[in-house]
């Protein structure tokens, strides 16, 4: 524990070190080549995790989860015993890719028995230099539902730190693994959970001058990937609703750019607002009840708010020029947005009703795509001085911190716990795009594997 606290302190005290480190990693290009991913990896995240020892000192043993009786389950061809091992692999991948810990997965560890779960074989784990131990079980009920139990032990202290359990449909078994990883991560780091969440993004294929762009979704680790649209109409800039029921995004359906709300369960979509004019850059309010969007009228773009159920729109900005985007503070009282009213793209803050608009970015270059952290303490944005870099600042515009240094990194969005920033990177000339994640400290830059090229990533909240 003491080591971990030290590691966290180092992280917040050394942003400059982090910056240099990321610059080096970013220049290296292909993360897959330097990936530490092993057979344990299920093909989701890969990482170029830094070799700073302080970050990986906390050894966590995660042996295969046990079962009260090896029963068949729709979740795995091998029954609940095989599924238990798979659950432990998912937890291991989550914790490893986060970069905070040094997890060891089930393929390199002895398998505990079912009674061991609540009475760990301490000598076994102490002998393997494990600081922490994550054990659990996967039981199948006669009706098919799964119960996944998760226990975190401190091996040195020989004591239980926390436990949790979840009853799930077989198809949702990975959520049990993510919930367990969240439990361990939260208990050991003191941060809010984020693994049990999903990401919406745009999948890209085809040549640079004729890209096909499809709306797609996946779990936070890249699993359960699904294309939502066919790609016949160009899709851009998706955002998950806070309740995960729908996605708001831009589509060129019927030829013109308009924003739609796509209902995931019903697989239907509707226009957010009937308009003769192009609408784009949609964003949810934190309570999911309203949507911010931008609309161009006679070439002049302003920001509007409309109820998610439709109805009249309220215009929030009215300056000549381009006011675009917009992201609510987590309490819903303020909006950070982008405007070129001063002559170039800069970041502004206003009250949620549009009053008290004021510029906050004053550090040269252009500042765009601001996104308010779910914790409220930071704003992530794209800073352009020639190249595009991901950066953060305080809501008052102070404390500019660069997180990346590459040719073109764009459009940061936040993990639900506000500790990780996600963005997309465009490769010079080829135009190929990919999704990346990075700790707020500037460490642990890693590529999120996707089946094809990918852009415009947006994280949803942690599932209830």
């Amino acid at each position: 524990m003491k080591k971990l606290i030290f590691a966290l302190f180092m992280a917040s005290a050394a942003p400059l070190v982090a910056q240099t480190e990321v610059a080096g990693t970013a220049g290296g290009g292909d993360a897959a080549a330097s990936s530490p991913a092993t057979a344990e990896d299920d093909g989701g995240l890969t990482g170029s995790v830094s070799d700073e020892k302080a970050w990986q000192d906390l050894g966590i043993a995660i042996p295969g989860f046990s079962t009260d009786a090896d029963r068949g389950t729709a979740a795995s061809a091998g029954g609940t015993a095989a599924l238990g091992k798979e659950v432990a692999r998912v937890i291991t991948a989550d914790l490893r890719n986060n970069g905070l810990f040094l997890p060891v997965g089930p393929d390199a560890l002895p398998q505990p028995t079912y009674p061991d779960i609540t009475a760990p074989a301490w000598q076994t784990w102490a002998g393997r230099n494990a600081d922490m131990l994550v054990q659990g079980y996967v039981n199948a009920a006669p009706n098919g539902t799964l119960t996944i139990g998760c226990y975190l032990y401190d091996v040195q202290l020989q004591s239980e730190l926390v436990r949790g359990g979840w009853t799930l449909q077989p198809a949702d078994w990975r959520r049990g693994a993510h919930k367990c990883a969240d439990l361990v991560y939260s208990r050991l780091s003191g941060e809010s959970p984020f693994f049990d969440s999903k990401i919406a993004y745009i999948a890209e294929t085809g040549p640079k001058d004729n890209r096909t762009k499809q709306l797609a979704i996946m779990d936070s680790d890249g699993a359960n990937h699904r294309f939502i649209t066919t790609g016949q109409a160009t899709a851009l800039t998706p955002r998950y609703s806070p309740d995960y029921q729908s996605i708001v995004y831009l589509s060129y359906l019927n030829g013109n750019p308009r924003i739609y709300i796509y209902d995931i369960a019903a697989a239907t979509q509707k226009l957010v607002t009937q308009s003769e004019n192009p609408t784009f850059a949609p964003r949810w309010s934190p309570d999911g009840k309203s949507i911010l969007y931008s609309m161009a009228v006679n070439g002049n773009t302003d920001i509007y708010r409309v109820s998610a159920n439709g109805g009249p729109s309220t215009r929030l900005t009215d300056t000549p020029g381009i006011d675009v985007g917009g992201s609510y503070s987590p309490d819903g009282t303020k909006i950070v947005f982008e405007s070129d009213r001063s002559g170039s793209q800069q970041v502004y803050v206003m009250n949620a009703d549009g009053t008290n608009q004021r510029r906050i970015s004053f550090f040269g270059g252009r500042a765009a795509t601001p996104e308010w952290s779910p914790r409220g303490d930071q704003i992530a944005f794209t800073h352009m001085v020639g190249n595009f870099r991901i950066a953060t600042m305080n809501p008052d515009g102070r404390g500019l911190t660069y997180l990346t240094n590459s040719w073109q990194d764009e459009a940061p969005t936040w993990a639900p716990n506000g500790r990780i920033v996600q963005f997309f990177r465009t490769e010079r000339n080829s135009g190929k795009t990919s999704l990346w994640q990075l700790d707020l400290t500037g460490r642990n830059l890693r590529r999120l594997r996707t089946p094809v090229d990918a852009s415009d990533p947006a994280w949803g909240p942690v599932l209830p």
Partner: protein
Amino acid sequence: MNRSLATAALVAAALSMSACQSKAPETLPPQPASPTAPAQSAGPEPGSYAHFKSVLGERDVIYFDTDRFNIDSQDAAALQAQAQWLMQYAGTRATIEGHCDERGTRDYNLALGERRANSAKNYLVSLGVPAERISTISYGKERPVALGSNEGSWARNRRAVTITVN
């Protein structure tokens, strides 16, 4: 109304003549006189998009500086030629596509592309083309024509393209 329209057309014609004096004449060679010959054998049907392209040549596209949407003298010459054609074929409609280079953020580029398309539209309207015959659409940075990541390619992608339908 009639008079101002006629004046605008005259001015447009005069401007386009002065701007294009070193180039080929605007009008095509006369159609073959035979009344039975199908139009196809004599090049694109007048008023069609193919005809617009053949008359306008490269002047169906205008180009912009980084982050700008103003009409410079070269743009004005091209738009005058477009306006002349559009007023000659009153049954046609035009769509102006606004585009940006890849060195801008996605949402901003959608707005900037719309602004560029509107600049072109407003200029055509000022020359007498009825506003209701012209629509605009922004593709932001989604539809580049030049594929390199260099100044030359970016300059070719910052553009407004006029497409006509009969």
